[in-house]
């Protein structure tokens, strides 16, 4: 089952840990905030995580200094 990396914009402060851990999924914008390289369902805030990236995504969820990240199953559509 694919999981979605949900970024809570009310918490994220663009510290860039997640972009380092998931270089094939996220890029940093000019202000440091993460942005999905590829849109998932036309949405660049909630990228789908392939099985190969799951471990790195869990690390990012664990280490994000602002507790802004969560992994959610694809069906339970996260808030945009």
């Amino acid at each position, binding site marked *: 089952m694919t999981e979605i990396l949900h970024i809570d914009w009310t*918490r994220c*402060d*663009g*510290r*860039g*840990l997640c972009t*380092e*851990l998931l270089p094939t999924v996220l890029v940093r914008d*000019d*202000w*440091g905030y993460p942005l999905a390289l590829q849109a998932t369902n036309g949405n660049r805030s909630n990228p789908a995580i392939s099985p190969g990236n799951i471990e790195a995504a869990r*690390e*990012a969820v*664990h*280490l994000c*200094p*602002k*507790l802004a990240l969560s992994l959610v199953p694809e069906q339970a559509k996260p808030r945009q």
Partner: protein
Amino acid sequence: MDNALWAFGRMSGVVSLVLFSVAVILGILNRSGRPLFAIPRFSMTLLHRNVSLLATVFLVFHIVALMLDSYAKLNVIDVFVPFLGGFKPFWQGLGTVAFDLVLAVVATGLLRHRLGQRSFRAIHWLSYAMWPIALGHAIGNGTDGTSKWFVVLAAGSLAAVGAAVAWRLSANFLETAKARQGGLS
């Protein structure tokens, strides 16, 4: 045996103080959002955590050695409740306060995901109080507190942590400070 405990108790206190200085500086580096040299940001957070835990381990060595030592004879109450000690109660009490603060900061740091960001941050600020209190305890209570090598070490640590705090308070502290001030080129 007794002399060895006494020496070990003092040295582990010094090692702990140095490690806590490094932990504070790493915490501040973390907060800036910058990677250090070739060390990526996620490794910096882990480094900050691990140095903090190591410092805490040495702090526990320090306390346990002086509890077992027949001269210092710390008891369990001295370890948790400040200012009741028989010998230099004020300076020893500072050590107790610092230890209590370390316990709070480390426990909430490890349980960050369960507590939530707000409580974690509120308690984590106490680390800035903990460090000078620990330094005061070391100088005031330590047998070596006023010997030359220790004064040099203390002054060096104060300069390093002081510089880090000054940088923390400066306008361009955050990695993203320039961009967010509208200075995009």
